[in-house]
């Protein structure tokens, strides 16, 4: 056990973000989908503002807009009205009803209500599913994971009577974790394509929240996997799961369709990327394309060139669990050691880490990082890094004050190098 907990009663400068943000993020990777927050209107407005500001792209999101009186008498009615209205105005392919602390406290049974709605609308065949995402549990990572699990269950039921007779030779499923950007998912998809694999990604942020699948503005998700693509998941030979938080999704695929899964807890850093390529080349029996050989050489060269600057440096870092784990391993390759690590909620991943991690907030990190040489966290950590007068490296969610947060990469040889360069630039320019 290496996990400890903040001793404060009060949350000061929260790292944790509500699970619903993760849920909304996951749905952006499903084409023509829309999440409906079962909440007061402000819950959705905050999330919309937060995500729009980070991604600099419109975000598909609606709300049941509960008022004080609705809460007592007609939360279900509001949900029905919200679904009707969204169908009437936008005709989405997929609708997710996400519960919040408000409706969970109320004891509103979203599961039953959604099932009732579907019984009353048997002619409507689109996907409508509930996800329980109370704010008082987990964080962004768990909200995203739960939503993907719920989506997979829903799709599984939907295709249970039309399962393919056999698996297709080159088909694989890809389940990326919430810490991966659109750019990351695109990079991984391109690597898989270079190994002649035909991939279905669940959810697929690679061309959502950035350059999108369809042109122009729509209130629905404009990128992501289509429902038709999602319905092909049962024909895959294997599921590639990225991030420990997504393992349960891999298990769902195994249980429902007898598709084995392979889990990579990180695709960042030389050894982890090597592991991925060894698996790929073994699995496909194809050689590693020369482009990646060249990228690997470049990464090693950059690691050599930068080791004077990174060696012996200590860092303060606050991130969601899987992301934290990934970057701790990477920074170890660069010869850096943590001054203090903070994460948002307790997970098995954190418990198995050698390093000590505190479940707390950015204030806890600030108080333990007097001797750190640099700071990595979302943009809320900037003020702490400024007070400590150490270089600030923005990573995670949300990030403000820079563009292309959706495209920045940290996976594969190329992404690892991009991240290395971003950090080294800060240290060399501003470090002490």
């Amino acid at each position, binding site marked *: 056990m290496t996990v400890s907990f903040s001793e404060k*009663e009060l949350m000061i400068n929260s790292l*944790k973000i509500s699970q619903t943000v993760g849920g909304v993020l996951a749905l952006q990777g499903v084409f023509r989908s829309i999440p409906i927050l079962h909440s007061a209107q402000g*819950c959705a407005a905050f999330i919309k503002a937060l995500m729009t500001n980070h991604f600099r792209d419109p975000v598909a999101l609606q709300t049941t*807009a509960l*008022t004080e*009186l609705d809460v007592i008498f007609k939360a279900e009615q509001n949900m029905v009205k919200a679904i009707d209205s969204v169908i009437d105005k936008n005709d989405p392919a997929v609708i997710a009803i996400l519960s*919040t602390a*408000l409706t969970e*406290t109320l004891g509103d049974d979203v599961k039953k209500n959604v099932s009732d709605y579907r019984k009353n609308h048997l002619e409507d065949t689109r996907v409508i599913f509930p996800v329980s995402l109370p704010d008082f549990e987990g964080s962004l990572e768990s909200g995203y994971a739960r939503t993907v699990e719920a989506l997979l269950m829903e799709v599984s039921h939907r295709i249970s009577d039309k399962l393919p007779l056999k698996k297709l030779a080159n088909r694989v499923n890809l389940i990326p974790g919430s810490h991966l950007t659109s750019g990351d998912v695109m990079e991984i998809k391109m690597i898989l394509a270079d190994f002649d694999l035909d991939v279905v990604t669940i959810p697929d942020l690679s061309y959502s929240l950035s350059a999108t699948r369809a042109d122009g503005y729509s*209130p629905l998700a404009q990128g992501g996997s289509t429902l038709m693509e999602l319905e092909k998941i049962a024909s895959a030979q294997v599921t590639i799961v990225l991030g420990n938080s997504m393992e349960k999704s891999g298990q769902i695929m195994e249980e429902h369709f007898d598709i084995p899964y392979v889990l990579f807890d990180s695709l960042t850093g030389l050894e982890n990327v090597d592991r991925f390529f060894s698996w790929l080349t073994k699995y496909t029996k194809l050689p590693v394309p020369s482009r990646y050989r060249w990228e690997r050489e470049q990464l090693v060269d950059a690691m050599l060139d930068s080791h004077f600057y990174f060696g012996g440096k200590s860092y303060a870092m606050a991130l969601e669990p899987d992301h934290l784990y990934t970057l701790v391993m990477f920074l170890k390759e660069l010869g850096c050691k943590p001054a203090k690590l903070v994460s948002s909620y307790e997970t098995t991943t954190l418990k198995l880490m050698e390093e000590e991690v505190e479940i707390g907030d950015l204030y806890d990190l600030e108080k333990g990082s007097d001797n750190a040489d640099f700071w990595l966290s979302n943009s809320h950590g900037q003020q702490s890094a400024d007070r400590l007068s150490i270089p600030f490296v923005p990573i995670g969610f949300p990030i403000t004050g820079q563009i292309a947060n959706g495209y920045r990469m940290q996976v594969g040889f190329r992404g690892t190098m991009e991240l290395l360069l971003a950090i080294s630039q800060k240290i060399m320019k501003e470090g002490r």
Partner: protein
Amino acid sequence: MKNHIINAFQEPACQHNQTQSNQQGCSPAKPGQSNGGCAFDGAQITLLPIADAAHLVHGPIACGGNSWERRGSLSSDSSLYRYGLTTDLSEQDIIFGGDEKLFRSIDEIIQRFHPPAIFVYSTCVTALIGVDLDSICHQAAKRHAIPIIPVNSPGFSGSKNLGNRLAGQALIDYVIGTKEPPFETPFDLNFIGEYNIAGEMWDIEDLLKQLGIRLLSRITGDSHFHEVQWAHRAKVNMVVCGRALINVARHMEDAYEIPYFEGSFYGAKQTSSSLMKIAKLFGDQRLIDNVSELIKNEEEKLEEALKEMRNVLRGKRALLYTGGVKSWSVISALQELEIEVVGVGISKSSQEDIARIKDLVGEDALLINSRGARVVLETFKEKQGDILIAGGRNIYVALKERIPFLEINQERDHAYAGYTGFIRMAQHLVNAIQHPVWRLANLEAPWEESNHDRIFQ
């Protein structure tokens, strides 16, 4: 509904008031068709700029954790308002009421930060489980001997606008009139509803200083708690952001006989007229003469600066989609630049705002009474607009449609008030409209079929 909320709806100076004539009040949000913020959001917008106070959100993580550090209000010294403080209620806390956690959180804030005051915000969940915020704050205030102010504005009680007003009520009930200023001057002025977005109040404050007018209390952009306490000693109140805090101005008129007027600093015309109104309310002839002199000088400098930009902007067609006072004050600023306003969003405007809009834009402009982005885009195309001017939420909607855009609401990074702000705004309009990206982004890729000629030429 609780009494204080009903009172906020019955504000006599508010045009949304349902008891007056046959106007519709602030209509509730519609399920599946709503984009606006909640009353909690509105209360925070109003109070958070009080920079040296602690602002504690009593609720689950979504309320505080998803919303902190989102506003563009700047502070010149204190930074405690930039800390996101919340009780982050767990399931256990909710079952047991969360009172103990709130008490201990207040203790911790005082021990760590020694603030002059704490604002404690209720949220939907704490309202639902019946937390008695007033009583807890009262007890804690007694124990710690500093003001601890309950802000009863849970999200589900209504819109952002209502939250502004409930926050104003908290200032009336607990803050204004509870301390005396160190000294008074004959020309003490308050701003009400000015939030110092991107530091734009500082440009105005410079002008006031030149005229010998002192800003006694800034409510609330770039303020410290004590100055709000002694706001009742001002001689004149100016309500800057329209109707949102009209209750505060009206209260001070009733209780302390401070005259107020509503004005704006967008555009040269309104900046000049607001300065003149301030001088006239002070009733000092020398001040009035000085204002005339300043206006003359500033407007001359302005004309010189705007000369070339006018050639670009003259006759351009703008669609304005914003709320409250900005819906008319920005129109007037645009018209000064000879930009034609071809459409105006009015879904968040009061009857009085709408009357002013109609006066300004005439018959041909379209008034859009809808909150959907789609309607805005359709109107823009139909009216052949050149630029869309709206809040941050719509930036990327516009960019998806390759439409030039100027951001006007609270999250923006640029100061547009006063004479210098007006020049900046004109410059940004020119930059947006003339940018090469509009041509480039609309180019089809050479490999698209309709472009074969370009490849094979």
